[in-house]
């Protein structure tokens, strides 16, 4: 096996056997299995659903679930590596062929990969580390009517509640701004937006 695109590490031995078994599936069966796989990749939280669909596939096609799971594990190695390395569909196809999958099936999978990769890339980017991510912002503003030192005040205040994710916990931060501060804050945030947009 030559150099693979999706990984630099040696591939487990079982993979060749799994690819051989995959080649035994009809085009229709392979297409159905691919659909199940991509649905899981684009919605990685739906583990229950994925396992159910795999089990249904096994039953309908008279394949034992155990071996099927191993085959699926082998297949998934490629898209996971491909995502990390921004591989093109050509490279994905080449890798499957190198692993022993038939040309027809490799091309089909690569096609599906092309279709789904924008969604998958967005998911991967979304998982990237963020420090103290701002989750939510609530606000209220009002008028200070009076205080113990000033009978009549009539000044506007703005209160922000920022919900920040620190590690795995959420923390609330309360801040008060005067009106000039608010306008200055708004102005700065608009500048940030312009800056972010010029880099997108």
């Amino acid at each position, binding site marked *: 096996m030559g150099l693979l695109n999706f990984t630099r590490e040696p591939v487990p031995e079982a993979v060749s056997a799994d690819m051989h078994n995959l080649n035994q599936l009809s085009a229709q069966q392979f297409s159905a299995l691919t659909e199940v796989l991509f649905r899981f990749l684009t919605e990685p939280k739906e583990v229950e659903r994925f396992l159910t669909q795999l089990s249904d596939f096994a039953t309908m096609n008279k394949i034992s679930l155990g071996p099927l799971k191993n085959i699926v594990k082998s297949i998934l190695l490629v898209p996971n590596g491909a995502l990390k390395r921004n591989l093109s569909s050509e490279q994905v196809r080449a890798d499957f062929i190198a692993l022993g999958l038939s040309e027809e099936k490799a091309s089909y999978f690569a096609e599906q990969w092309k279709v789904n990769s924008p969604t998958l890339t967005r998911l991967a980017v979304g998982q990237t*580390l963020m420090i103290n991510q701002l989750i939510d*912002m609530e606000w209220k503003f009002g008028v200070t009517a009076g*205080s113990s030192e000033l009978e009549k005040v009539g000044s506007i205040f703005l209160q922000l509640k920022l919900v920040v994710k620190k590690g795995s916990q959420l923390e609330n931060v309360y801040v008060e701004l005067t009106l000039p501060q*608010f306008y200055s*804050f708004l102005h700065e945030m608009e500048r940030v*937006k312009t800056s*972010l947009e010029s880099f997108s």
Partner: protein
Amino acid sequence: MAALRDGDFAALQTLLKAPSKDAVRQLCQECFSSPPAALGPLAQRACPGLAVSAEEAEQLVSALHNLTRHVVYRGLTGAEDILRLFPENFHQNLKNLLTKIILENISAWRNEAQASQISLPRLVDMDWRVDIKTSSDSIVRMAVPTCLLQLKIQEDAALCGNNPVVSALTVELSKETLDTMLEGLGRIRDQLSAVANK
């Protein structure tokens, strides 16, 4: 907040013993700015300059504190309003001097009162920076812009006295979060304009 008491105006007449008008002015400012708890020490410091007993100094300082704070509380701005506070038999020149000093300082005092109002922690400064994320463990090559926003927040001034605690909070915002935030801020601005135009 202090209310004017009967004995206050009698105590104020002690100011006639002050060495100069500037001394009176200085004392007025110190008495306004001092919190009630610090009036005792202030009286002790003022005592020698006025050539009065410790007790008289205390009563004077307390009376000046009450008078200045009362004027600020009521929001009196006109000379007549302030003059009207004094009883009829009060020393004419002293009354005019005190009124003049109060009028000179009233807006600064009002700002001081507003600045030391109780409030939630206040924003004192903000800085931002835009980074481009180029790589991570989940994806080796990317170009994702992100914003880091640092807010400097000061705890309630009244609780900290002379050493306000300023904490810095750095938050990260994705482009989507920023857009949502701007939407919210825009809505605040629209509502503020609506209120201002009423």
